[in-house]
């Protein structure tokens, strides 16, 4: 039982990342009708916003360490961040320690800006083109973006730790009456799950309870009629693209302490997130979220030794297997709407 609870927890945090990326993908597809293969790259750029912000906070000058030499026998130099000079060492160190959560403030305008630039500069030219063209151009853009990141940051993963207050794990075992230490879960993963739930809730609330959201939903249902009413739906959809980019970027920012970011992390999530969108139902926001968590949990269960002993290799195919079964039994996915991508 404790193993099952642990794998459900694992699936939920993995599902959180899938759900956030799939949510953005669905927003873009639902509003603009564009299949955006560069969405994983936005997740990756978000992660590198955290890396960049951490590095900005850590910009340093060198101070010689008396009595010590470096590997070539020259005087050893120690890096002292400028922020120590400005705020004092204790406060400066605390700010650097909290770099990842603080980088959310940095990432939001950057990601919205990148979203606007992508939509206005490239993607708007492909609205009336076939989906195959959209996939090709956005996939190409994703490759360009990841190569740009690799050029500036290298190919190796870059450690970006969580604030020290969130290192360590929470003992669910003791809380739920199991053996202490049998169900422990890292604090930051719990933070990530809570953060994902908050963002998903905020996006739904924005679409459901604001006038802007109402117009966007109306535009998603019938773009032409909304346009005939004199509403500039294109402008609103561009803003939604920026919001979707920010959602992916924030998912990336908060993911960095879970796995050290590298230039390829967007591609690692992209394909799975597309499967999530298809399983959830093209254009369905609740479907994307539900499928994200469902597939995350299933993937976790498929990695259990007892499952692998019975069905070797199932961990590598489970998501695709479930996608096949769902598409055979429910061709529009779990919550897909009639008419989407069917013309």
């Amino acid at each position, binding site marked *: 039982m404790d*193993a099952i609870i642990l794998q459900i927890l694992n*699936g939920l945090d993995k599902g959180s990342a899938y759900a956030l990326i799939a949510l953005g993908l669905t927003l873009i597809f639902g509003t603009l009708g564009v299949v955006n293969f560069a969405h994983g790259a936005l997740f990756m750029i978000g992660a590198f916003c955290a890396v960049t912000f951490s590095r900005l906070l850590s910009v340093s000058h060198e101070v010689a360490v008396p009595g010590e030499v470096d590997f*070539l026998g020259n005087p050893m130099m120690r890096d002292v961040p400028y922020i120590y000079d400005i705020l004092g060492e204790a406060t400066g160190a605390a700010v650097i320690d909290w770099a990842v959560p603080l980088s959310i403030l940095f990432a939001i305008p950057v990601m919205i800006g990148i979203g606007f630039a992508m939509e206005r500069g490239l993607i708007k030219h492909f609205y009336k083109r076939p989906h195959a063209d959209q996939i090709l151009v956005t996939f190409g853009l994703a490759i360009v973006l990841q190569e740009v990141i690799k050029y500036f940051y290298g*190919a190796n993963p870059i*450690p970006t730790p969580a604030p020290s207050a969130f290192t360590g794990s929470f003992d669910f075992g003791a809380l739920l009456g199991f053996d202490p230490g*049998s169900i*422990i879960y890292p604090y930051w993963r719990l933070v990530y799950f809570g953060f994902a739930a908050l963002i998903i809730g905020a996006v739904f609330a924005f679409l459901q309870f604001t006038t802007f959201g109402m117009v966007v939903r109306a535009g998603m249902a019938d773009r032409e009629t909304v346009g005939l009413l004199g509403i500039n739906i294109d402008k609103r959809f561009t803003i939604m693209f920026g919001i979707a980019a920010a959602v992916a970027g924030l998912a990336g920012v908060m993911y960095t302490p*879970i796995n*050290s970011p590298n230039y390829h992390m967007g591609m690692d999530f992209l394909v799975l997130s597309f499967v999530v969108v298809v399983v959830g139902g093209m254009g369905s926001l609740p479907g994307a979220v539900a499928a994200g968590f469902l597939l995350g949990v299933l993937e976790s269960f498929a990695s259990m030794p007892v499952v692998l002993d019975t069905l070797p290799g199932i961990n590598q195919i489970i998501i695709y297997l479930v996608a096949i079964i769902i598409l055979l039994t429910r061709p529009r996915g779990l919550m897909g709407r009639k008419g989407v991508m069917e013309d």
Partner: protein
Amino acid sequence: MSKSNLTRRGLIKTGAVAGAAGLTLPTYLRADGHSGFTNAPTGSTVTLGFNVPQSGPYADEGADELRAYELAVEHLNGGGDGGLLNTFSSKALDGTGILGKKVEYVTGDTQTKSDAARASARSMIEKDGAIMITGGSSSGVAVAVQALCQEAGVIFMAGLTHSNDTTGKDKKANGFRHFFNSYMTGAALAPVLANNYGTDRKAYHLTADYNWGYTTEEAVRTSTEAMGWETVGTVLTPLTQTDFSSYIAPVLQSDADVLVLNHYGGNMVNSLTNAVQFGLRERVANGKNFEIVVPLYSRLMAKGAGENVKGIFGSTNWHWSLQDEGSKAFVKSFGTKYGFPPSQAAHTCYVQALLYADAVQRAGSFNPCAVGEALKDFSFDGMGNGPTLYRGEDHQCFKDVLVVKGKENPTSEFDLLEIVEITPVEQVTYDASIFGGELGACNPGA
């Protein structure tokens, strides 16, 4: 009575086809492409082919390999401070190139993909006339390129490849490896683990699902079980896996008190980070502190894992903090040119380039079969690993192996590992027949 169908038109057609085929044949298969062997140098220069990952997940490691090769070429041509030429026990090389020919080089991008690596190696051999191919950061790539070089009739000097198979079941007469292997890791690491963690341990292995992962798991399992450890679980993880939490969680449910991560590169960074996040470093199991082991360390990868490597044992082929004359000379030479210490990948690649050049010089010929003979059973010193033997039976170098540990208090971003033991070569030597395979005959490509 025989009947000939030969006609004038048929003869012209056949001749045209044969002529076209002749023009399109690979250089190394054409009679004018060699003088008894593939790509025999005819002018005043000789071209080496450096096949390293310039893109893909190991691009940083590949960049360090390329730096090392460029430094080797500089030293072979008499530039710089001479580096390891000053400490190398063989004095055949004199800084005038190889056999008086100035060394030039071409590069290829393996992308850490076997097919791409073979294509780039083939291009360097056929189009650029490379006489030797060297480099790489993956055993899959090494085995694939080694087989190609065997067919093409050029020498392959492997870069960073740690699987037993490279000089085991997949060994080739034209292929040579300086880097150590999984067996040596197991043999060197197990006694250190037993000394530090005791002989009554239960180990759980997470293993990358490919060639190198299998041989490393087998080597570490065999060696630790011989010391009294019990293996309570082994799970293969997909090479593409990025989040290992669902593989770490079952470790908590098992009665293991040691986790062995048979992972390299990004896999190692992520699995180790996840294991530390799940509190395994603070865990107590079976009345003992839970321990994590990373059999193959790389400083470049350790940097990616950050603080998580502290106190964790592993093995490495070479480390810049060694204090022998060869290591000091190489660190000084590389550090002065590039501003930071070299990685183990850079070291093995630099040494391989010099060993090849020295073998040619001693053989007095670029003929790969003559070079191979000069490398076989060649004993040398002064290259940073102590006395070393290029064993003739499998073309594997035998030398001391370093057991290292993540440093608790690093003084710089390069100071991540500390050497805890230099395992003597006798302890890591094995019978060449245990891994099977046949070297076969040397192929000069003629």
